[in-house]
């Protein structure tokens, strides 16, 4: 049976949120990322508004480059908690159309609406409806691709950004792909692109015309994948997020940190934000992992596994800090720290506890903070221990 897959991608998400919250930014180049420090800053662009893209600025561009191209742009640091707040709202809107929602990052998701689309009058209607809901409720725009599989849906959502809606009909896959540049294909990086161009292949349609044997000879196993994609074939399922193996957050410091107390403070903040996300998404995990990267880029992870499934701020923080302390005296400065939780379980299949009713004070505090934030927003309330300069944060 043909499937109906949607790829929903928020348009310039972080920058659009900044423009939403700060009306004076609207219509201007807004660049979200690390501090450019007059062109000397480290780090990269996270997202930029469409106005900024006119200057050749794009995600992952070094912030110093961005500053060169557009020194008068509005440079803002990310407000991650605000983004995840809106991202959470987006997820719950998507969840109203199908339980098969696979969130692949903070601002994009796949939906399998094969079974549920008839309730709404078809896949196109679902796409229109959810774009409308996102616009009305979040005052943001999303671009949506509708296709028989994930690969095509993702390409389709990207074609008419912003606020786009592109449908790839069953049977029209090859036609849809044939004039697209080869770099659009998954797995075509610089090297493969060069190799293809050397053989005079520029458009996806030209790959589709080659035989599988020929592609296998030239590109090995990869050739087969290229051929399948050129035919618009992709049978990977949309995996609802219960299938997720781990959840983590990490922070790269503006400047490498030598003071272990500062690192611990950041771990506390990460633990709080991560455990809040876990409680929102109703997942708990048994393994807590600390990730640390030193100034020479060596990266270490340490973890501990428990009998219980955990989502408590206090426990995650305590374990992360004790894992951190096992590194002993810091011989190097710390560049990045992160906390991950794995061996996840959703509330189904959860081992119940004899003393669950006797929630410790800390659990009560976390629950209270959660409900205040639900009501008044992420920035409404915080722990005094966390009062400090903001640093950038990325969620995986």
């Amino acid at each position, binding site marked *: 049976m043909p499937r109906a897959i949607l790829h929903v991608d928020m348009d310039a998400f972080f920058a659009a949120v900044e423009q939403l919250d700060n009306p004076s930014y609207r219509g201007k180049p807004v660049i979200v990322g690390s501090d450019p420090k007059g062109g000397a800053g480290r780090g990269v662009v996270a997202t930029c508004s469409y106005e900024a893209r006119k200057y050749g600025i794009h995600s992952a561009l070094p912030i110093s480059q961005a500053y060169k191209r557009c020194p008068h742009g509005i440079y803002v640091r990310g407000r991650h908690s605000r983004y995840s707040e809106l991202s959470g709202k987006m997820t719950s809107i998507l969840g109203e159309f199908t339980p098969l929602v696979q969130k692949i990052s903070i601002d994009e998701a796949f939906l399998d609406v094969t079974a549920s689309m008839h309730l709404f009058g078809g896949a196109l209607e679902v796409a229109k409806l959810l774009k409308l809901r996102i616009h009305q409720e979040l005052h943001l725009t999303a671009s949506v691709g509708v296709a028989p599989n994930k690969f095509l849906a993702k390409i389709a959502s990207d074609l008419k950004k912003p606020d786009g809606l592109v449908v790839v009909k069953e049977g029209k896959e090859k036609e849809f792909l044939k004039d697209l540049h080869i770099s659009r294909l998954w797995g075509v990086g610089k090297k493969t692109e060069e190799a293809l161009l050397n053989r005079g292949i520029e458009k996806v349609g030209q790959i589709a015309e080659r035989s599988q044997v020929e592609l296998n000879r030239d590109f090995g196993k990869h050739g087969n994948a290229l051929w399948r994609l050129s035919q618009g074939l992709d049978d990977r399922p949309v995996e609802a997020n219960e299938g997720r193996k781990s959840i983590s957050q990490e922070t790269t410091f503006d400047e490498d940190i030598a003071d272990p107390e500062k690192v611990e403070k950041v771990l506390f903040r990460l633990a709080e934000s991560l455990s809040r996300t876990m409680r929102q998404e109703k997942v708990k995990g048994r393994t807590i992992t600390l990730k640390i990267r030193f100034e020479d880029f060596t990266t270490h992870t340490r973890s501990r596994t428990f*009998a*219980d499934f955990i989502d408590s701020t206090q426990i995650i923080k305590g374990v992360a800090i004790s894992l951190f302390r096992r590194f002993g005296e810091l011989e190097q400065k710390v560049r990045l720290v992160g906390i991950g939780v794995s061996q996840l379980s959703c509330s*189904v*299949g959860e081992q119940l*506890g*004899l003393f669950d009713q006797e929630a410790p004070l800390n659990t009560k505090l976390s629950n209270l903070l959660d409900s205040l934030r639900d009501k008044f927003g992420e920035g409404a309330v915080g722990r005094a221990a966390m009062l400090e300069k903001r640093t950038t944060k990325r969620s995986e």
Partner: protein
Amino acid sequence: MKFKVNRKEIHQAVQNIIGVVPVKTTIPILANILFDLQGNVLTLTGTDLEVSISTQVDVQGEHDGSVAIPAKMFFEIVRELPNIPIELLCDDENKISLNTEKGFYRLSGETKDDFPRIKKTEDHESVTVDANQFDSMIAKTLFAVSSDELRTTLMGVFAKITANQIRLVATDGHRLVKIVNTNFVSSNLDREAIVPTKALNLLSKNLQGCEKIDLTMSDEHTVFELAGTTIFSKNIEGQFPNYERVIPQDNDKSVIVNRELLSSSVKRVSIFSNSITHQIRLSISDGQLAIQSEDIEFGGEAREKIDADYSGDSIDIGYNALYLLDILKHLDSEEVELVLKDSSSAGIVYPQAKKEGEDILMLLMPIRLNDE
């Protein structure tokens, strides 16, 4: 210090103690055993600062003295020696030599002054308990103790002695065992403590050939005195959870099954359960109990049925198979009774045949079933 001893006796004594000596420690002196000779009695002491154990050996003493001897090296040499006499000599610089008919062995000891002093208890009243019975109580509770350092009060067995009974309770928050024994010599003690797992394991290892244990409890320490051996343990600080409150009173569904049959079915079915949760489902209906598992991730599935003495509404309940097996393994009656309420409340497991003067209750919390 100088004495002669038979290899067999010193080997046995060191073997009793070696379990307490920490394998890795930041305090190097703890890797030693303290040898203390007075007349013809040699006292060996090991400690990890939480639990200490002393044992006495009869020797032919020549010069009294004390020294701390590296435990691992000493244990290994006496383990490898045949049963021949050993002469041990320690000079003023704590250099130790062992002489036997096979040859000699030298090693360096540490001064006794560096070895931590074990604080002897204030004179508390003790109670005498039957070693065998107490050993069986320990074996039936220790398995349920938590290893979770986040809840230290669950990392030991709660022991309470009152006028006519001793009770032991252990729980890791998912299962719980309570054993009340009234076969003990009555006394007027009324004390309670959380005794760390390590102390009880050591005690259990040292009980061979023992008939009686003298048990003393203070607020800070619990002391077990056996013939020639004393185990001295710090109590775990903190409040043991209110376990009586979580023992359900209104469970009304009673199922009686053969323990061995249930246990072997659960073992087989659990092979096909999810490798993280080990979840199995018990479906109980008139006259039978079905055990099922399903691993959605890898497509495994299993189902078995056994006879059960039950009549009433059917009930489905999910458990961690490993926890259920633990419980069944630590009961020794032919049949067990499960007393249940619903799929999200604690289930009680009783042995069908009771031993005189011993009440055993085991509790197990379910796993939430996927279809709720």
